[in-house]
């Protein structure tokens, strides 16, 4: 699914990422690496494998798009307790397989507590905003005078209703007039239902496909 924003073409990927061909850049938000590890550290028995699977999904995206750069839109590591040796080792191992990849990370609220990724991962960490016309990359979905904001933070999902009183809640990309929000990439993350304005464009992710949904399908408050 491609979309043109401020004259730039971008591709929405059902793996919960955006590809920007002109800059050969892959964008993902809210990876929350080590969330399960954080819970295990608190003696909550959550099985492992979520971060590794998320990394495998990133690898697939990188191969498929041949992106030369990855931009992480904040909340990269879930919490300080999530920096478990095993989790970091998995990320490092993944990093060596993509050694040539340039990775830029915009800090988010979780990153303040969790800290930047270890230097060995050679991820450039920046405070928001990062302006790359026509886009502004940041974690919080707020409007910017410098361009169209691409952000994360809210883990958007949309509640749909159709004929026969059908309902479905699906993670989504949500593009308002000046701000676009990506779905959370991490598989251990929850979602928050958003209630878009009528003129917004919303793309739901339904079993491996990105489908645009019109305002008439979206549940509204009251």
């Amino acid at each position, binding site marked *: 699914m491609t979309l043109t924003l401020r004259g730039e073409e971008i591709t929405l990927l059902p793996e919960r990422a955006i590809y920007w061909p002109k800059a050969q850049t892959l964008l993902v938000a809210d990876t929350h690496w080590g969330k399960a590890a954080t819970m295990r550290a608190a003696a909550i028995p959550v099985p492992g494998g979520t971060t590794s699977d998320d990394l495998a999904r990133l690898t697939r995206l990188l191969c498929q798009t041949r992106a030369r750069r990855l931009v992480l839109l904040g909340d990269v590591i879930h919490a300080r307790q999530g920096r478990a040796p095993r989790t970091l080792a998995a990320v490092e191992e993944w990093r060596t397989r993509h050694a040539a990849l340039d990775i830029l990370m915009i800090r988010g609220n979780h990153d303040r507590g969790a800290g930047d990724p270890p230097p060995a991962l050679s991820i450039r960490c920046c405070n928001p905003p990062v302006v790359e016309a026509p886009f502004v990359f940041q974690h919080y979905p707020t409007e910017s005078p410098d361009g169209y904001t691409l952000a994360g933070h809210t883990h958007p999902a949309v509640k749909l209703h*159709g004929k026969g009183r059908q*309902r479905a809640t699906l993670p989504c990309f949500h593009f308002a007039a000046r701000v676009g929000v990506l779905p959370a990439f991490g598989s251990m993350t929850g979602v928050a239902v958003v209630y878009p304005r009528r003129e917004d464009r919303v793309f739901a992710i339904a079993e491996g496909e990105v489908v645009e949904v019109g305002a008439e399908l979206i549940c509204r408050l009251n």
Partner: protein
Amino acid sequence: MPAAIPKPIRQFFAQRGWKPFAFQKEVWDAYQRGDSGLIHAATGTGKTYAAWLGPIIEWMQGDGEANPPLRVLWITPLRALVADTENALQLPLTELNIPWRLESRTGDTKASVKAKQQKRLPTALVTTPESLALFLTREDAPELFRDLRLIIVDEWHELLGSKRGVQTELELARLRRWSPQARTWGLSATLGNMTTAMATLLGAGAPQGRLVRGVVPKSVVIDALLPAEMERFPWAGHLGVNMLPQVLTAIEEGQTTLVFTNTRSQTEMWYQAILEARPEWAGQIAIHHGSLERKIRDFVEDGLRAGTLRCVVCTSSLDLGVDFTPVDRVLQIGSPKGVARLLQRAGRSGHRPGVPSRITCVPTHAFELVEVAAVRDAVIAGAIESRYPVERPLDLLSQWVVNIAIGGGFEADELLAEIRSTNAYKDITEAEWHWVLDFVTRGGEALRAYPEFHRVVQRDGRYLVEDRMVRRRHLLSIGTIVSDASMDVRYLTGGRLGSVEESFIARLRPGDTFHFAGKALEFVRIREMTAWVRKTTANDGIIPRWDGSRMPLSSELAAAVRNRLDEARNGIFRGPEMQSVRPVLETQADFSMIPAREQFLIERVRTSEGHHLFFYPFEGRLVHEGLEALMAWRISRLTPITFSMSCNDYGFELLAPDAAPIELAIEHGLLSPSGLVDDIPASLNAAEMARRQFREIARVAGLTFTGYPGQNKSVRQLQASSGLLFDVFTRYDSGNLLLHQAHREVLERQLERSRLGQTLERLSSSKIEIVDLERPSPLCFPLLVDRTRNRVSSEKLADRVRRMRARAEA
């Protein structure tokens, strides 16, 4: 030969103009002989003294020691009942001058009292299952309970059938092992399966207990307020207050009236309606439900006892507990739902000699009149509902094992033997037991690769909890078997009003008005798990909808309803309620038909929303929930189709964008009872019931927890929804027995408890009547307007979204 009753006891009774009942003497005698048992009778018939005076007589005839160590443990299901129980138990102690200390121990107990109890326990202690569980984590607990003589479990029917009941069973097993001389007596309302109830209480392998029947209930009068004009009386909805004028008249007739409702929202609504109609009653009417602050409830209960209140609008929060003698009129708003429940509520009135109990039902829609007629039939036939104990829930066992590990630790074999002495876990397998041990120590098979994980640790063959954070979190969450995430509601000025579900508060925006505790409140903000509010005069507020408020019609009552409809089909309308509802039933016959006992009615209609199918098994909501998923799944295997479903106590609806091939489906065995064991899990999977069921399991097993005031960031970082965990476990740890439990609980709830198989047997041998409607019939109307739905689909999700889009554009 029965033991003699000591003189002071006889005098205690004589001073009140009473004589000990035969059943009380029977219990005192059985207690002296060392027997355990269960006493069942209606509330307010002397069960308390039957249990309580046994150990007092024993003391009088025995040592007569002053202030002996803990002898009697009184377990009550509700914290709200503790104070009343304490008062009732204190009376004979004071009057008979018995030097015993009687105290209670709950979450509300003052720190100073707790400190005193830390040094020495009273002779008799009143507590709840949750507080007792915490108490058992004390390392010196075996010593404290050594001289225990009697454990009383009050309102056992209320605990039986829930995981709190299983928690109580585990506690009893532990106490019995420490104090083999202790006897167990349960107090219960009458159920359909008293023998099972007693066996569950006394534990597996216990000697035969004594089942004692209390005073046989006085006659009960069940009647109904009838709508003035049936033509204008609604066919659906339980929130209407159409009957307000008749209710006001009834309240005026009585001295003190209890108005029972089925949900807390109804309580708030009726309170508002009554107060608006009779503003001069301000101060004489009150509201009472389980979400209200204890102080408010105490104030109301005191008013009831003193007879200063004209009317209290309440929920099941006033079903239990001590008597309110001044109450002379009881109203039941909406469906009675069950026979036992109605009798319990009726028993709240008429505590004066020679006055029968009376309950007056107030219908909120037409068909509830049929239920009133039916419930009277069921009472006459003695068709009381049964409650079934929960079998080996592993989430609760995980919680319990951590609890024991905190309280000084355990050895595996010893604890297994103790657990197997409960009825709930008597059949637990070695494999299940080892899974639970593995789960609480190493986190289970899936966490084998994480040696740093530890919740419970093993030291020299003993299982212990060493981590202080694990301990703290466990102690904070142990009381949360039943409660969902709730938030305190407080005035900005500080006073606490009660609590509501977080999901309700989440829908409010600052400045919104809502009704709670009978007051109009403006929502200001949320901070520290508290919703801060201020009073307002605005009157257009919304009323909180609490979860879990939709109770199913019992199968006993559902059967009685089917009989009444069968009569109506034959033109027989016995009694005022059936006469009153007659026009609606005749409309049903006119638009469609009234099904006879051997007929299964299916109605079909097309509206702008799509194609509707309505099925009417009349088996109660619980059965219909399973049936609707099964039917939808079976039809969806014939053709790609998406159903949305709704159900009520009479039937269920399948709604689809396209016409469903119902005739074809019936030919292909839609109603066949065979293949159920495979079909049910498949259909329920699709309907995500197991995923929902996992919510409670995850909470009990300590995987998720509700927040608590003052929680810090480190706790918030650990929050994950149970649905997400369910998915993660399903993917990475499919052998997890808690997942299996979720599926099993759903299956059991559908298959056994609700007798889905028997229902299908009955339906498949019925004559199927498919009626095409020109307009909605009175029976289908409530389903048509119901907005809470489940879904089943055999279409790909992306296709569904595309089709939804295509249709919206068309």
